[in-house]
């Protein structure tokens, strides 16, 4: 195993509720909290868990995708002092890589700690996107693709992109078995979300999520050809935050290592946004990132206890299962359909619901994934807690921006 030049930890994670359709308290006709309120809640949620609060933080970083359009707001680093005065006149930055912005925030913090330019970093991710109707939100989210291809794209651009991937998967393998795997992915997401009070699908009481999804035939006349609504993550407002710290930093903030996770390794990969994927049934950039992170850490998938992966669409979940090497191409759907990724399966995935069940506040998702892994490995997940065995002590996050374009994978273990 190749160690990082310095130990890096994450701790004191916090998630706001993922707000949007599905939550009982969500009313699109009423005034709702804005980006500011979400940042304040998540930021203060982190800072109150550490000794010294904001005074202990050396720098801050925010992952956000499209506040400039959803909230008409740029220059986001300037919001950190709004969270706490103790962050004013200190370094802060914001990063953007579409739905991968959250993990870019994490990586930025990790690099600062590795570079010894900071001992304690406040890493956050946030997006408030229920400010516009879905049909206009689709325009904004389409900026995660190459704008020169927008004209030929679907009205719901990203569902259209992943519908094409699903269509290619159906044609190459078997539509029926693929849809069974996709429906099971949805059912798992709902089952897990019902255990996390912050999840967008926490209030979901449908008696048969699997049947609901499987029986809902995709209808290209009103949506996209190969995905139904259950195959897609919803529009979400949320923010997440976590502390990234060195050993010294952990001491400063009074966090015991056993209440933190150690970053064992990470990999970041991008794919050319101006080129179409060479093979629609493969997430090549995700696959490359996974290979790199396993190579750099010397670990293998057999040692991973749980994965938080980027299921913006069920088909993305299936394809990432294949990219992880858990199933051969075309068999990821069977692997999921057999229950292997359920919370009591061989490798539990997205244990608080993932993007489909917990929610997908685009620029915030990467940080939310890290918070979930921190919760699971340190036993802080409440009802959603899974068993972490000594044989498989590691956790993993995979965050994707765009259609397999900006990818980060991080491997964690409980601090010791």
């Amino acid at each position, binding site marked *: 195993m190749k160690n990082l030049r310095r130990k890096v930890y994450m701790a004191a994670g916090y998630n706001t509720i993922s707000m949007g359709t599905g939550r009982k308290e969500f009313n699109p006709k009423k005034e709702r909290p804005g980006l500011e309120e979400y940042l304040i809640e998540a930021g203060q949620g982190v800072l109150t868990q550490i000794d010294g609060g904001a005074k202990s933080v050396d720098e801050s970083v925010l992952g956000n995708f499209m506040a400039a359009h959803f909230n008409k707001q740029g220059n986001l680093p300037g919001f950190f002092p709004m969270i706490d005065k103790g962050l004013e006149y200190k370094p802060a930055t914001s990063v953007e890589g579409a739905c991968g912005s959250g993990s870019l925030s994490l990586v930025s913090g990790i690099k600062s700690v590795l570079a010894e330019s900071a001992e304690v970093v406040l890493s956050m991710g946030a997006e408030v996107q229920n400010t516009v109707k879905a*049909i206009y939100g689709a*325009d904004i989210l389409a900026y995660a693709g190459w*704008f020169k291809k927008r*004209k030929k794209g679907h009205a719901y651009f990203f569902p259209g992109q992943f519908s094409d991937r699903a269509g290619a998967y159906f044609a190459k393998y078997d539509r029926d078995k693929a849809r069974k795997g996709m429906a099971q992915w949805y059912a798992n997401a709902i089952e897990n979300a019902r255990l996390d009070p912050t999840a967008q699908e926490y209030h979901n009481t449908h008696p048969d999520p699997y049947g609901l999804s499987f029986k809902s035939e995709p209808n290209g*006349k009103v949506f996209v050809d190969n995905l139904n609504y259950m195959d897609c993550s919803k529009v979400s407002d949320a923010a997440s935050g976590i502390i990234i710290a060195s050993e010294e930093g952990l001491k400063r903030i009074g966090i015991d290592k056993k209440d933190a996770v150690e970053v064992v390794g990470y990999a970041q990969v991008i794919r050319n946004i101006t080129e179409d994927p060479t093979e629609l049934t493969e997430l090549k950039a995700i696959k490359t990132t996974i290979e790199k992170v396993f190579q750099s850490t010397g670990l293998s998938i057999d040692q991973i206890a749980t994965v938080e992966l980027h299921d913006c669409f069920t088909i993305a979940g299936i394809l990432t299962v294949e990219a992880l090497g858990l199933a051969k191409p075309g068999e990821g759907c069977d692997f999921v359909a057999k229950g292997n990724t359920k919370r009591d399966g061989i490798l539990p995935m997205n244990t608080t619901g993932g993007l489909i069940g917990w929610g997908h506040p685009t620029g915030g998702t990467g940080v939310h994934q890290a918070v979930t892994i921190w919760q699971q490995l340190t036993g802080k997940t409440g009802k959603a807690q899974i068993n972490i065995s000594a044989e498989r002590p590691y956790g993993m996050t995979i965050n994707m921006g765009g259609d397999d374009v900006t990818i980060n994978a991080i491997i964690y273990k409980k601090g010791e």
Partner: protein
Amino acid sequence: MTYDEKLQNVSVLGAAGKMGSGILLLTAVEMTNLSFKPQNKGKTFVINAIDLSDEGLAGIMPYINGQVRKIAEKQTVWLRSVYEDRADLIENSEIIDQYIFDVMNVIRPTTAMEVAYRSGLIFEAVSENPDLKVKILSQIDKNNPNTPWYFTNTSSVPIKLIEEKANLKGRILGFHFYNPPAVQKLVELITTKNTDPIMVDFAYGYAKGIRKIIVPSNDIAGFIGNGHFIRDGLHGINEAKALTAKYTWPEAVYMINKVSQDYLVRPMGIFQLMDYVGVDVMKYILNVMDPYMPDEDLHSDILNRVIELGITGGQLSSGAQKDGFLKYERDQAIAAFDPDTKSYVNFTDFAEKCDDALGKMPDGFMSWKAVIRKKNKDEIFTAFFTNMKAMNSLGAKLGLKYGACSNAIGQKLVADGVAASSDDVNTVMLTGFFHAFGPVNKYFD
């Protein structure tokens, strides 16, 4: 002349009214969609929005704009293909804005009725006054060289009467939308023995284009919808009157409104419905229908008295409910009008007493909102009305009597030849009035 050609130049008379503006919206959208067809490239589609009131016309344009936006937002997948060749339209927002522009660009708001002289199809949605309708249509027909077709939105005036007096010779039919036309699926189609069958075919095609369900009705004043509503309303007024032996008029109105809503599981009580239609409009319809129904007394002294006191109901141009028999706050009824004191009395002053007098609701009660999407409605209603029959409360008695009266009205409409079948009566009440069950049923046998 093809369907598309017939819709190239259309006029809507009374376009600023609540019915006219809906007809304008639906037709302008249909015409715009036709203009996208390859064979219609380069052809101009025009709909004249004609009304006496400049203010009214100015007032409906934001409504039309907002409604077209809603339509475009739901059809963006299709609209992207429509504007496929427009390199300048890339994002959904640009495509939706263009569609709104294209629909608005078809509409010509004007107070000059002369523009209708160029139309091939004319929708009439002026007030429910037979003489006015005849006068306007005669004038247009004398000056229009295109031998146009006339679709009248009358809800009560016999089509034959207009046809004969305006000398239209088979070129008019009744095409009665329900309020609001943009939402309500139902259209009553009324023809005369002279009606040109080609025009009837066109009417069915047009209804399909604007996604409406047609129920044919015979040409008897009031047709099916108002044939039921007017008699149902008069029953409500008479029942309230009977209650005044023991209760005040506002209390009686409250009780009958509650019985007709909750005990019959309707979207609104009868007095609220009369306010929604317009107390004044109801009087217009009564005046039209009464002379044609020699065996019935279609009039109401109380209705006339309330109107004399300036109480009209109906809606403001914003769509908000105006006060009528009842007073409204945010479209919720909160008080009932007392003609003696010429003032509204708050429900809170007497609701508890009246609710006690009506008695407890029968077991199995579900509100209209809760029941309307249920698949096992028949099962729910069978149990509910069976329980109601087993009760001896005032509410149960009034509810059963009301249901039986509605049933009798429905059957009379069939017996009188207004409706071809009880299914047609039920379809009208289910789709035009959003009742949860048709009036012709077995619940009240």
